[in-house]
């Protein structure tokens, strides 16, 4: 699928400050956390403060993008927020985010949900609206504060963070050459209405789910674009842990150099809808003009969205310092113990609750 002339006008990210290590989580549950971290290739994961949620993370990320791009809020025609941890079941995250950047009332807004790929789905919708001329700029956000059940394998990776991308035609820092999706009904991970924590199919989340969708979608977009892995300087995959994207990259024929900047989960954990977008943001933080980027997102349930991008000359003068560059979030954080983590994530119930 192509949307002529459409690309990324600006972007921003937000990752909460706090971090917890697999070692500390394992200590509480009587598990070898060091081995678990090594197995998942996760050194630490981000933890949101008690006053942070998908709405605050989305707003902070978008405010960075607005400032970096010098965007007039009145030019925003759509705000879509993809997440599986919207604070309200009914009442859109997107309306609060749009109000907080001063873009209301003359725009359309909605919340998206497709496990970890709701943010990339939002990018595709914005591409269509911009290409058709219905709007000047569209905002696509992927943001989450997801949780794993205490003691579950997911607890070692589920973290918080988000990325906001402003799509438009001019001036673009990266052109989106094409997008492609691969979607099936695959029950690898789910959360029933009203349930506090998600459930998953254990090993089933690998071969028939993540790997099949990511590799088929990646192969599909390269076939339609007539490219090979050697044509890309950077590749970004959805990264539920630090191991899956490494293996997906190898299966598709990419090397570690190409995956270097797109890998963020080992230091901040799996930010779900934010994961691929924060990886792409880190690539853009380091990218040079004419470089080509392949992004393949994944959402359980299941589907993949792939994007083929080319960085433009505008990246040279683009403000990549406002807010927090992704590398800074990978390098710094405030490490907390499991007790504080449990308090922050609402795992401790107060009397009367």
């Amino acid at each position, binding site marked *: 699928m192509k949307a002529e002339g459409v690309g990324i006008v600006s972007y921003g990210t937000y990752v*909460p*400050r*706090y971090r917890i290590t697999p070692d500390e989580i394992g200590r509480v549950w009587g598990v070898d956390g060091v081995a678990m971290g090594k197995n998942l290739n996760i050194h630490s994961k981000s933890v949101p*403060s*008690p*006053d*942070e*949620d998908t*709405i*605050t993370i989305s*707003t*902070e990320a978008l*405010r960075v993008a607005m400032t970096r791009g010098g965007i007039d809020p009145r030019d925003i025609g759509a705000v879509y927020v993809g997440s599986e941890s919207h*604070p*309200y079941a009914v009442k859109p995250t997107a309306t*609060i985010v749009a*109000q*907080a950047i*001063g873009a209301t009332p003359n725009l359309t807004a909605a919340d998206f949900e497709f496990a970890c790929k709701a943010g990339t789905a939002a990018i595709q919708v914005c591409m269509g609206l911009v290409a058709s001329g219905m709007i000047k700029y569209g905002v696509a956000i992927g943001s989450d504060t997801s949780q794993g059940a205490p003691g579950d394998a997911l607890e070692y990776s589920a973290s918080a963070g988000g990325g906001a991308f402003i799509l438009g035609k001019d001036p673009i820092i990266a052109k989106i050459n094409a997008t492609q999706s691969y979607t099936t009904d695959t029950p690898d991970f789910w959360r029933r209405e009203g349930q506090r924590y998600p459930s998953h199919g254990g090993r089933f989340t690998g071969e028939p789910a993540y790997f099949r969708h990511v590799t088929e979608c990646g192969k599909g977009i390269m076939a339609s674009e007539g490219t090979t892995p050697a044509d890309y300087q950077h590749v970004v995959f959805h990264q539920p842990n630090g191991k899956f994207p490494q293996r997906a990259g190898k299966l598709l024929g990419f090397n570690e150099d190409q995956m270097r900047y797109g890998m963020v989960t080992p230091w901040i954990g799996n930010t779900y809808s934010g994961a691929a977008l924060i990886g792409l943001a880190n690539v853009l933080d380091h990218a040079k003009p004419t470089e080509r980027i392949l992004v393949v997102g994944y959402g359980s349930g299941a589907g993949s969205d792939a994007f083929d991008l080319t960085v433009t000359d505008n990246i040279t003068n683009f403000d990549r310092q406002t807010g*927090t560059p992704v590398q800074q979030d990978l390098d*710094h*954080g*405030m*490490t907390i113990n499991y007790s504080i983590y449990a*308090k*922050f994530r*609402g795992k401790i119930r*107060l009397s009367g*609750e």
Partner: protein
Amino acid sequence: MTVARFWRETLRRYNLGASKCPECQAVFFPPRSVCPNCSVHRKSLTKMEACQLSGRGEVYSYTTVHEAADGFEMQVPYVLALVKMAEGPMLTGQIVDVDPKDIREGLPVRATFRRLRADGDDGVIHYGYKFALENGAAAKK
């Protein structure tokens, strides 16, 4: 706080909406409809201009809260500060993501968007500004 009362305040809580006197250029937060500084108050009547604070300021004074207000129990001990904004107004707000022992007067801060409180498990969630240390210096390892 009722839903309607908070909703009426979203402009200033979300976006630091303020007002500016066209005569003496003083900025007010929350917004005022008349400038109290100008000798002839009426000169500013109907002429006050809506504006938005940049969100940047510095810690003027602070205290550490150990006995939390309702809804803040999970955050104690937390820092509550008077922040002198770059445009002039003084705001009261929480400083987030900081160890209380790392806070001091004069530190540069920026406004950040956070949850202020929630009306129970089934009520409205209120959002608005708090402050974080500029560049997060104290948060680095």
